[in-house]
Each structure stands twice: as structure tokens, then as C-alpha cells.
């Protein structure tokens, strides 16, 4: 669309700018401020330069959290995106079941995150939770509060439960907006299942899928509440992802300097990875 140049448009954007700037810039400056100072808890601060950044970047603790975070994010993307697309493909396109399906599927998205954590905690308890009880009855030695592997399994299963629907809804919306003529043309051209998916459905879903991948990437990278209620980062530190670690340092130990430096590094990683994702997916589209 041809846009006209109009500097007065800034007036329309101004309220948004003011509100977001108030919430983004002042706290960000606070974080930057902490990240370059040292304090001994008596409200006196000393300039410390990039000391905290060096400390965080070199700490094994940060490396471990970052590694766990990446593991978590890529696992859930690898499961939720294909699963979401597959479910969207098998959903009915019209009929009385469509709204029923959509409403039920959207339900997990609107449950407060700590309730999601609490619900899964109850659900997975080895003695009285359905999941834990059934797994143990089937002969698996399952206890997510004690075994790191089980904790990971439960965490990922919870996230799949919680968020796959977002991918389903976005993919489904992309699918139903494909005009019938495409399917008819494909039928006439003799295209079958995979070819239809590859050449019609996937290209037409591209935009919504880009949004789905970006949202899932960003949100999974920021996961805090559900994970902290479910496992609290444990057992040990086995499920301590970045946000959980950050809160432990900032609020638990009150190490403001390292916490602030870590916050900034954390934020920059998300920005960088989102940008990489975005450009990769968009370049693919243009070439």
C-alpha cells in the first residue's frame, strides 16, 4: 500500500509512545544503572564499569542456565510447531464442531500461569496426581520432584499442553483463509496430500506461522511463573532456566549488579535471536 508522508501521524502514536516509554525506558535505565555499579547494601554506589558483565558472561552458572533455556526453548518449538500444524490440518473446516473445538482448545491459553503450574503440580504428583499415579502404576519410576529427567519431561509436557493451542489456532486461521479455488485447482492438477500441504497450505500459512514461531520463541524464553510453581527450578538446579535464575539472584540473593547485567544480556539474547528468526523466515519468503 502506498503510504502518504504525514508528520502529524506522530500525534496518533504519541500516547502509545509515552506509555510504553514510561514502562520501558525508565526501568531499563534503572537496570543499566545497576549493571555498572557496585553497592554494599547501604545505598551507596560505586562505578564498576563492565565488571558485572564480565562476571556474568564468564560464570558457569549463567552458561548452565542459558544452556537449559536453549534446550527447553528448542524442545518445545520442535514439538509444538509440527504438532500444532498437524492438529490444525486434521480439524474440520466447517460444521457445528468447529466452535466447540476452538473454544476447548483455547481454554489453556486463558488460565493464569501460576494456576497452570499449580494444576500440573497436582496432576503430576506421584501419589495423588493422575499423571504420576498412572505412570507409576504402569511400572515407570516417576517422580518429578526428585528426578531431573522426570522434571524435564513434566515441564515440557506442561508447556506443550499450555501453548500448542496457540500454534493450532494461528495455523487453523491461516488454513481457513485459503480460498477454495486453490484446493480445487490442486485437485484438478492431480496433487495429493503432501503436495497440497507443501505447495498450497504451507506457503499460505507462512505469515501466521512466523508469528507463531516468534511468539512461542519469545514467551518460552521468558518462562518463569509456570516453571517456578511446578518445579521451582529443581530438583537441584536441573530445571533452572534463565528467568528463574535471574529472580533467584535479584530477589533471593539481592545481588543487584550481577542481576542487572544478566538481565541486559538476557534481553539482548532474545532480541538477537528474534531478529535472526525473523530475517531468516522473511528472507525465505522474498527469494
Amino acid at each position: 500500500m502506498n503510504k502518504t508522508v504525514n508528520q502529524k501521524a506522530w500525534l496518533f502514536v504519541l500516547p502509545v509512545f509515552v506509555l510504553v516509554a514510561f514502562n520501558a525506558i525508565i526501568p531499563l535505565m534503572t537496570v543499566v544503572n545497576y549493571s555498572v555499579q557496585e553497592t554494599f547494601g547501604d545505598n551507596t554506589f560505586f562505578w564498576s564499569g563492565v565488571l558485572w558483565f564480565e562476571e556474568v558472561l564468564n560464570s558457569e552458572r549463567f552458561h548452565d542456565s542459558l544452556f537449559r533455556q536453549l534446550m527447553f526453548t528448542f524442545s518445545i518449538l520442535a514439538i509444538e510447531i509440527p504438532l500444532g500444524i498437524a492438529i490444525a490440518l486434521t480439524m474440520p473446516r466447517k460444521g457445528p464442531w468447529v466452535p466447540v473445538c476452538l473454544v476447548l482448545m483455547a481454554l489453556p491459553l486463558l488460565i493464569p500461569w501460576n494456576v497452570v503450574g499449580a494444576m500440573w503440580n497436582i496432576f503430576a504428583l506421584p501419589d495423588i496426581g493422575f499423571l504420576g499415579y498412572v505412570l507409576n502404576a504402569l511400572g515407570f519410576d516417576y517422580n518429578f520432584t526428585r528426578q531431573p529427567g522426570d522434571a524435564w519431561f513434566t515441564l515440557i509436557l506442561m508447556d506443550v499442553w499450555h501453548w500448542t493451542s496457540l500454534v493450532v489456532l494461528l495455523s487453523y486461521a491461516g488454513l481457513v483463509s485459503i480460498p477454495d479455488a486453490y484446493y480445487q485447482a490442486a485437485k484438478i492438477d492431480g496433487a495429493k496430500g503432501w503436495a497440497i500441504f507443501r505447495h498450497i497450505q504451507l506457503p499460505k500459512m507462512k505469515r501466521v506461522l512466523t508469528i507463531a514461531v516468534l511468539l512461542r520463541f519469545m514467551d518460552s524464553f521468558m518462562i518463569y511463573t509456570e516453571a517456578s510453581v511446578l518445579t521451582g527450578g529443581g530438583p537441584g538446579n536441573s530445571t533452572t532456566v534463565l528467568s528463574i535464575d535471574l529472580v533467584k539472584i535479584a530477589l533471593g540473593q539481592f545481588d543487584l549488579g550481577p542481576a542487572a547485567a544478566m538481565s541486559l544480556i538476557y534481553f539482548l539474547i532474545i532480541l538477537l535471536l528474534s531478529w535472526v528468526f525473523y530475517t531468516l523466515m522473511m528472507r525465505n519468503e522474498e527469494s
Partner: protein
Amino acid sequence: MAKITLDGIRHSYMENPVEEADWALKQVDLTWDDGGAYALLGPSGCGKTTLLNIISGLLRPRRGSILFDETDVTPLPPDQRHIAQVFQFPVVYDTMTVYDNLAFPLRNRGVDPATVDKRVREVAEFIDMSHRLKERAKGLTADGKQKISLGRGLVRTDVNVIMFDEPLTVIDPHLKWQLRSKLKELHQRVKRTMIYVTHDQTEALTFADKVVVMNLGEVVQVGTPVELFEKPHHTFVGHFIGSPGMNVLPCALDNGKPILAGQPVAIANQAKGTDGKSLEIGIRPEFVSFSGPNEEGGLPVQISKVSDAGRFRIVETKCDGQTVRLLVGEGKEIPSDGARLRFDPANTRLYADGWLAE
């Protein structure tokens, strides 16, 4: 390559059609000869797209059957009927190049790569796309995309019929002419049956050798453009084709002769079997003229409006509250008062309940 026969086709989109009006297609019996250029013409909602989808196999009719030559194809899906279709909105596979788009129908059918290549290049030349084979189909303009859709039909050698569903809807006006004459030219080159669905009479009449006119779910007339113009079988055809359309004037019958405004009118057909039906005289404005001052008879009228249409003028006259239009050529005089109209008896016909009395 086949003759297509539609035998007693009826279709309804409702679960339980009760009234006659519930049927989108009331009753269609038609034969399409192999290699013909047909147009399916009618106003929006007359059932033409439904009929098209039934032929292509995208829809299965409630009643009746479709034969390709002598084979009953009614239960077959589109890909087994060997048909091609160009849709109203261009359908191209965005992610593929022009070449891959054209090759797609052949590759899906497992044709060997050498043949695919040969066919694609041949067809690309037909549709003037040889120089753009490597481009992404997504970047083409609407007319380019429509050519690709058409090309995907032409590339297959087994195609019985190519169907066009209002293919020029999204094309820029100045390119419409170009694409239409391209289609005509292609038809002469490939000699495939083509069915062109449209609500635009100019498109239909310029493209087709034979036009099928539909209204309210039925076929009202099949004929060459000249037949449709000169001898409409239904007042709808007379009205829908031609600009301005045919004059349709309610009349009475006296002793087997139609009477209009108290005067007998000479007609070209017979007024038999018309008892109890509502009667109308149909005559095209082209066949109405003013009577000369010395001629006897004629229908006395008042002139209410004259509009200039270039080479001729359209004159609107009133007679007994009814409007009669006629065309007056350049340089001919329009009488100021006491005007009387003369109907050409060879092109004046009587219609009973809309249908030509026979």
C-alpha cells in the same frame, strides 16, 4: 478428447429440497461437441458456476449423470476426468517458478522429465511465457497468473475440456481484449473443447461459437450468437442479450392475431397453444422504425427520450403506457409529432409465458 453429455442434471445445495425454487439447477440436458468453443452465459446466481463444477467433478449432482463420450463419469473425482479449469481469481503456486507451475500437473501424474520439459516449453510459447520461465509465479501480474492457470490445463495432453470461470474478472480492462483474443487464437490452435462461463454478453459472444444461456437454474437457449440475437427463444434471452435489449410488450389475442394498442401486429411465428398464458410481443429495437408520412397504419406513439449512442440514436417512445425503444441511424430524421412505429414482421414474435410461441 470427448463429447460431453449432461443427462437430466439436477442439483440443490439444501439437504431436503422441497420447492422447485430450492434447486440451484432445475433440469439440464445438454451436449457439448468435441472441440467446440462454448460460452455459458447468465446473470449472477443463475447456476452457471454450479453447472461448471458439476462438469469438472468438484460437485456431484443430486440427480442425473454426466457422460464423457459413452463413459459415465458422474462418480469420478476431478483428477480422473481429465479436465482443466481456470478460476475467477488466479490460482498459482506461489512458491514455485513459472516453469514448475506449468510442470506441476504432469509431475503429479508421473510423466517422465524429458516429456515434461518438452511440453512445458511448448505451452510456455503458446502463452507467451517462454522468457519468464525462471521467474517466481508470485511476482506475476493478474493476467500473467491467469495465463499460467490456463497453461497448466494446456500442458496435459489428456484434457477433455478446459473450463473458464469468469476468468477476466480481475484483469485490467485494457488487457481483457488482449487475453480474450489470445484465448480465441489458442482454441483454434489446440482444438480442445472450451467452456467459458461469464455474465458478460460481449465476452460470451466474442469468444464462443455456441452460447448456452442460463436463467434461474435452467438452460433457456443454446445457439450461435446470431441465433440468440435474431431469434431469442425466451424473452429473458432477448432482454439479456443486445443493448438495449428486446422490447417486450404485453398484448392480447383476437382471432389468432396479436393485438397491441388496439392494432393487429403481424408476427413471424404462430400463435397456437397459447390459451390462458400471458402473451407478449417481442421485437428488438433494431427492427423497429418510424413509418414514413405516406405509409398506412403503424403504432401511434409519443417520443419521450432520445439518447445518442454514437453511430445511432436510441429513441424511447410511449404507447399506451408501455415503453418501446428503437434505433435510428445517423442522418435519419425523428418525427416531431404524430409519430407512428413500424415493426418488421419477420423479426416480430409472440411469446407465451416468456417462451417463444411455436
